[in-house]
């Protein structure tokens, strides 16, 4: 080792031993940011890899259209023939059974249960031949034998099912039993879609169809030459009047987004949290380095005096931060490998086990390299102050300031103290007054605490607000689902109008229900880029509607409200006039009253005020429950009474649809909470340790002139409390204002139909409990750190 290297190493070792507490805190902060950054990037890489892997094998369609009821197969043939951009296409036939018709049993133990708690559609299908395959746990494309069934992996997790269990299906002609052979991953019907597929053999499919009780549905699926043109293709498809399209249409991009939605958001949340933690760590590093330069200014002066170049002096100090950041990246990276393994268990179950490739190592290495370069860059910048230290000022006055800066500071100080603070004193708490004066004059140094607590507060609040928003029963109203307890869908049935009459009569006479409101779904056509395009409109009375509008308001007479995606597609704003026609009728003009965001029906919907007339394609009825019976029980009762109607307890349904995302957010919120509290405690402790050390002469003097240890403690604790509370309040305000729009725009960029997100926070939790928790954490750390003042050797403060 060279002589210079030896000096550096000895300095490093001495500093590590002498400033254990501060160095350890800094190291922990750096480890935490490196860990979170590496974990976020690794989860993201695993997720993208897993989705890619699944998509490679499963070959999901580039555009799919769901449909229930009769359809014209010849029209689909004609459409396919007319569009050369179609690579291949298929019609997948499906049989839908509701969860209550499905039960499972474990012959070996006699355990059993039913799937009635799952409200999404359970669709029985056979394996496709060309594309859109269901994939088993080994990544293969299974072909079930007669008597076998493959269930979605989600069901395996929810109901703790095993291969070998039996699935019992209640059909109109009795119970049919199939053996669960395994579980399948579904590329196109992932966590956020409202249906899921069961794989059976062709013979069993035909037997189930013949047995009755299932609702036949189809999906028309297309693979295109260019997968990126799904949205354009959808417009072309919807402009064709003859093809079937009364269900949801979904593009390849949407399928990908939906697949990555919840896990991707968690990875994003991790990266977001890690960036905040890194900002906090950098603030600390800056504070510590500046404090160190002040403490060691005489040594620096001496080194400069004997002719050591500035670069070498700052290099001596930089070595420590280089070593710490490098260690933090290594430790954080290693811990991230374990954490990623734990976090991606669900991803592997739902998608695929992504192959380990160069990206698996490159992505976290790149993320950690960025952390290293950024932290060391900031350290280098702060250490640049070494250049400005003047030898004489450093050695004689122990000051990091040059002549001009010293004079400027003295002038500033003189101006500040010219007006006496105490000569007008007429009693009151002198100790408190002194503390406030200290806080004011040392505000720049104390600034670290409000900044850190502000960031910690944002760090804890935003993920929690996101979680409570997605978990709230009101969240549906942001997504186009009215805040009602029951939803009845009437479609694809003969005598639809009679059925609607029966349902409305039954619900109207039911004392347990209130606010029964029915809407008709009509298929209008409006002029778009592709000529007259299909435009689905829900017609009814919206005067009591609870939908949230992001622009404008609910529709009145002669008005229509459109979904955010429709507003974007057709460039509509409130006040615009929209020309549309029903079938071959004359064109009618309606005024756009407002824009709402919608996740239902693929996001392209509209709501028009008007009479609910007969002959609609479908109807929907909403109702609330005023007493007696749970929404699920009443939904099940109506489902039994009207087999051709789909009755759902809306909130429960929303909850299930979003449950995967909600679970992920809960995990992210918890992680953020723990990180926030840990960061708050660590930084407060470190700051006060350094603050008390640099303040010891002042405290020694105050102690000598008669201030007790308790009074000195009160000064520090009071100032810390003010600084902490200021930061926490600022954090809460920023979270509620800027934070909301920041998260909102991030989610809007995901293009899922949510263009504007208003938090539905748990105010007691995030605006009372969280701030109190942070303040208590900071305050307790202060109490702990200042406890030593009582027994301290006060004379030592003056002589050290």
């Amino acid at each position, binding site marked *: 080792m060279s002589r210079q290297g030896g000096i550096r190493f000895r300095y490093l070792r001495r500093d590590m031993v002498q400033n254990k507490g501060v160095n350890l805190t800094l190291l922990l902060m750096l480890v935490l940011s490196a860990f979170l950054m590496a974990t976020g990037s690794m989860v993201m890489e695993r997720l993208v890899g897993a989705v890619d892997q699944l998509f490679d094998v499963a070959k999901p369609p580039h555009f799919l259209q769901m449909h229930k009821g009769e359809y014209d197969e010849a029209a689909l043939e004609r459409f396919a023939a007319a569009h050369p951009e179609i690579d291949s296409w298929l019609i997948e036939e499906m049989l839908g059974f509701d969860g209550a018709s499905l039960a499972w049993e474990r012959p070996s133990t006699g355990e059993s249960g039913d799937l009635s708690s799952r409200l999404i559609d359970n669709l029985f299908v056979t394996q496709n031949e060309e594309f859109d395959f269901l994939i088993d746990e080994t990544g293969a494309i299974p072909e079930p034998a007669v008597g076998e069934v493959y269930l979605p992996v989600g069901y395996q997790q929810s109901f703790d099912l095993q291969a070998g269990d039996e699935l019992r299906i209640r059909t109109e002609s009795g119970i049919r039993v199939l053996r669960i052979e395994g579980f399948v991953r579904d590329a196109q019907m992932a966590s956020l879609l409202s249906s899921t597929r069961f794989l059976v053999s062709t013979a069993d499919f035909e037997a189930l169809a013949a047995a009755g009780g299932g609702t036949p549905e189809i999906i028309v699926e297309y693979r295109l030459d260019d997968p990126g043109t799904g949205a354009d293709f959808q417009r072309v498809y919807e402009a064709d009047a003859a093809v079937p399209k009364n269900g949801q249409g979904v593009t390849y991009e949407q399928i990908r987004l939906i697949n990555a939605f919840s896990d991707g958001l968690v990875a994003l949340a991790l990266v977001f949290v890690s960036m905040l933690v890194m900002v906090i760590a950098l603030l600390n590093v800056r504070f510590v380095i500046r404090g160190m330069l002040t403490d060691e200014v005489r040594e620096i002066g001496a080194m400069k005096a004997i002719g050591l170049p500035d670069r070498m002096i700052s290099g001596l100090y930089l070595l420590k931060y280089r070593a710490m950041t490098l260690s933090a990246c290594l430790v954080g990276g290693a811990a991230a490998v374990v954490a990623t393994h734990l976090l991606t268990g669900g991803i592997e179950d739902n998608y695929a086990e992504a192959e380990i490739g160069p990206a698996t190592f490159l992505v976290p290495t790149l993320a950690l390299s960025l952390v290293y370069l950024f932290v060391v860059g900031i350290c280098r910048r702060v250490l640049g102050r070494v250049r400005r230290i003047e030898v004489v000022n450093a050695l004689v006055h122990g000051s990091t300031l040059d002549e001009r800066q010293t004079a400027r500071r003295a002038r500033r100080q003189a101006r500040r*103290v010219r007006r006496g603070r105490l000569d007008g004193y007429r009693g009151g708490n002198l100790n408190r007054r002194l503390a406030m004066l200290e806080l004011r004059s040392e505000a720049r140094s104390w600034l670290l605490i409000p900044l850190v607590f502000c960031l910690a507060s944002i760090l804890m609040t935003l993920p929690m607000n996101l979680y409570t928003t997605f978990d709230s029963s009101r969240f549906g109203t942001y997504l186009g689902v009215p805040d009602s307890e029951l939803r009845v869908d009437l479609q694809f049935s003969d005598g639809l109008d009679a059925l609607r009459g029966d349902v409305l009569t039954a619900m109207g006479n039911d004392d347990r229900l209130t606010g029964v409101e029915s809407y008709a779904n009509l298929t209008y056509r409006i002029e778009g880029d592709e000529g007259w395009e299909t435009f689905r409109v829900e017609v009814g009375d919206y005067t009591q509607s609870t939908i949230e509008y992001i622009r404008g308001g609910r529709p009145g007479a002669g008005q229509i409200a459109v979904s955010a995606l429709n507003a974007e597609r057709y460039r509509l704003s409130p006040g615009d006039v929209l020309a549309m026609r029903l079938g071959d009728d004359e064109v009618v003009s309606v005024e756009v009253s407002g824009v709402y965001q919608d996740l239902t029906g693929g996001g392209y919907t509209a709501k028009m005020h008007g009479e609910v007339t007969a002959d609609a394609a479908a109807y929907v009825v909403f109702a609330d429950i005023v007493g007696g019976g749970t929404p699920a029980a009443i939904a099940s009762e109506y489902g039994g009474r009207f087999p051709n109607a789909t009755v759902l307890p809306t909130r429960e349904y929303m909850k299930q649809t979003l449950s995967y995302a909600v679970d992920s957010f809960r995990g992210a919120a918890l992680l953020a909470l723990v990180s926030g509290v840990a960061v708050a405690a660590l930084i407060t402790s470190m700051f006060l340790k350094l603050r008390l050390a640099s303040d010891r002469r002042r405290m020694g003097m105050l102690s*000598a002139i008669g*201030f*007790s*240890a308790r009074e000195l403690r009160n000064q520090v604790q009071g100032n810390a409390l003010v600084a902490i509370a200021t930061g926490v309040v600022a954090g809460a305000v920023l979270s509620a204002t800027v934070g909301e729009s920041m998260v909102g725009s991030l989610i809007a960029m995901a293009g899922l139909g949510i263009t504007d997100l208003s938090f539905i926070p748990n105010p007691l939790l995030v605006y009372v409990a969280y701030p109190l928790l942070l303040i208590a954490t900071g305050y307790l750390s202060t109490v702990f750190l200042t406890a030593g003042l009582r027994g301290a050797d*006060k004379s030592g403060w003056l002589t050290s």
Partner: protein
Amino acid sequence: MKTGFVMPQHDHAPLACRNLTKTYHSTDPATEVLRGVDLTVGRGEFLAVMGSSGSGKSTLLYNMSGMDRPTSGTVHLEGRELTTLKDAELSRVRLTRMGFIFQQAYFLNNLNLQDNILLPALKAAPGDSEAVVSRVDSLMDRFGIDHVRRHGVTQVSGGQLQRASICRALATEPAVLFADEPTGALNSSMTTEVMDALTDAHSGGTTLVMVTHDPVCAARADRVVYLRDGRITDSRELGRWRADDGRREDELFAWLSGNGF
């Protein structure tokens, strides 16, 4: 080392310590800095404590003033035992009955000179601020720093700062004034300035205990004690100081050299 010297006794002694010891256990082996010091300071006396570096002068001062707690022994101030007092009581005693002057003039940068001097006095008598302000005004006038009362602590000279320290220490009308190397950081003209001020305070009746290594400063005292390795090994009565007494310093130098200073 001289043996068998007799500690002078004073009636109504405001300050007395008996068998005072102080051992620092943080070092290995433990360091015994004070090894059984007996000392009495008479009312209105000016006592100088001398000794070589590391002899325990400052430690003695801090233990007598309650800034530090002795390992064993007692300290009485105006008949009240200090070593058994709780921190808050001891702080109160320092506030109302003691004044301090340090080698470095410690002041709060965010207060002007007058506020710094007012601080302990206002704390000691919060309900009597008018009387306190007028007392401080006259002290500043007496010690010649009235014209810099609104100055910040970085705007005045070292001598002015130490005189401000004396004003602050006297503002509470203490029973004893402790000074730890009050001229240690000053040049000779400032040293004279500060010693004149201390002598002035003493002539006003203030009891003064000063630690110093400067024989010229110590010559102003009524009595000098010599500390070696944590014990008082000698003491010399000098009597009242007079500016025209040229032999006093020579006698002290001779005595000190006899003590190996």
